[in-house]
């Protein structure tokens, strides 16, 4: 069988994955704290081609060939999204630009040193506890108070406080009277006293270790010492009354989706050309 037929088919599948990924980005144009995802394609491992069948002495290497492509990674781009003012006391947005000594991050949030070692900029996240008691992270700061006074996200996950317990206020407290003060402490604006609750913000050294889970939550998969609570040296800010908008670029997405569609079409054409070659081989080569 012609080798390229499978290569073109693999190309179609890969472009389909790219298309799916871009569609998901477009779907989340208005999701607070959403981070754009890029599908990264990779060629199949190289294989060597050798000319054989002409006797041992005539065998020779023809070279290497890649026989296909696949969507290898879905990489989230953890860049800062724009802030938009909502004037709601229950909305919070993180603005972070973390400094790492000796590194200057470029516009895409990475630093490449002289040896080609790539380092991504650490990011700050709100810390959540989902219904199964697992720790999750999010940049979507649209919270609400439930009837027991817990600060929760839209899907009911608890927002964790600095003491690693879910943040819970006196059930008689109204969300509008809470003010986020210095050190991310909540202050009761009616009494002027601290409520004793403090947001737990986590610094994640390599945000690529986060796996998207849905409902605006991320799960940390990497092992080792990769997270820590923030400290005073970290350059970031949490703003109340704002949300961080999705960082998806609509024009780029539109271009990507068109590119994916056309690349899919090109691969489809290649499959058809191979099919036509096969047709010739089957119907015409043997004709007398």
């Amino acid at each position, binding site marked *: 069988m012609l080798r390229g037929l499978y290569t073109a088919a693999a190309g179609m599948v890969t472009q389909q994955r790219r298309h799916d990924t*871009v569609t*998901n980005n477009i779907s989340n144009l208005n999701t607070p704290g959403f981070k754009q995802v890029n599908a990264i394609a990779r060629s199949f491992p190289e294989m060597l081609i050798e000319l054989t069948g002409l006797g041992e002495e005539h065998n020779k290497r023809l070279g290497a060939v890649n026989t296909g492509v696949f969507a290898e990674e879905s990489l989230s781009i953890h860049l800062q999204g724009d802030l938009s003012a909502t004037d709601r006391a229950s909305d919070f947005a993180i603005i972070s630009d973390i400094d790492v000594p000796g590194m200057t991050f470029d516009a895409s949030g990475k630093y490449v040193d002289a040896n080609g070692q790539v380092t991504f900029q650490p990011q700050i996240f709100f810390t959540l506890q989902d219904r199964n008691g697992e720790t999750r992270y999010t940049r979507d700061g*649209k919270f609400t108070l439930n009837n027991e006074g817990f600060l929760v996200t839209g899907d009911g996950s608890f927002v964790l406080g600095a003491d690693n317990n879910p943040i819970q206020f006196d*059930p008689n407290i109204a969300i509008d009277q809470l003010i986020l003060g210095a050190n991310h402490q909540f202050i009761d604006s009616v009494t002027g006293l601290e409520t004793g609750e403090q947001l737990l913000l986590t610094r994640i050294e390599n945000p690529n270790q986060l796996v998207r889970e849905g409902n605006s939550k991320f799960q940390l998969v990497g092992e080792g010492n990769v997270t820590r609570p923030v400290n005073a040296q970290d350059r970031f800010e949490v703003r109340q009354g704002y*949300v961080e908008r999705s960082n998806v670029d609509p024009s780029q997405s539109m271009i990507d989706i068109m590119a994916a569609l056309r690349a899919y079409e090109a691969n489809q054409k290649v499959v058809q050309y191979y099919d036509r070659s096969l047709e010739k081989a089957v119907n015409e080569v043997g004709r007398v």
Partner: protein
Amino acid sequence: MNSSMINAMVSMNGMQRKLDVLADNIANVNTVGYKRKEASFEDLLTNMKQQEQAFDQPTRLTPLGFNQGWGSRLTLVQPDLSQGPIQPTDNVYDIAIQGDALFQIQTPAGNRAYTRSGSFKMGMDAAGVPMLTTAEGYPVIAQLPNGEEGPVRVPDGYTLRVSANGQIEGVAGDGVTAVPLGRMSLVQVMKPGVLTPVADNLFVVADGLEPEAAVRAVVPNDTNRISLMQGYLEQSNVNLTDETTELMIVQRAYQMSARALTSSDTMMGLANNLRG
């Protein structure tokens, strides 16, 4: 079916619902005491295509597995209880609340409902006794002089007088004689998320919850900056500029999702036509 298609379809559903919320707000731009609704989006459940250990190449940036999202959905639909502008009407039965509070209303089913719309009138109960009601005829609840809660009944020949701190009096025709009729019973919302808007500009506490969990009684005074204004009406807090801007943003996103849907349809067409 390809997943782009499902993704775009699910998200267009969510955006359609957001457009509905915005349309509702815009339709009520002149409704007295209307509180705008707002909603947010959340990305949908993500699944992971498992990858074998061999995929863990040195250049790989993320943990193993290829993530696939399934669109977005609407979440956190809740009323925005911020103050609306106050307009004078010179009607004694029009009462506006300044500050964070709601009137208490009794529904025909006997439950409590809450509203910011102070466009009241003199209605009648089943026995034909006049009492203060909403425009739809639901009695307005007050703390009566005898300590009970009930509808405000203004004696014949008396007019209604409501002071800034919520005290209700009936004033006789001479303009001097006044009889105390009680105090407006107002509540403050602690958790806007559990308030559900229902018809006739009313809010109720979501099913299965005790009203005490969501609202608490409040008396207007200087410290909580709540006051009542007789002869005024609170207008809708919908800001047409904000709503229209939001409408444009959502509409464009909807349009882009529709394009993604067309595009995935074209892809399916191409796959169908592989064999000429």
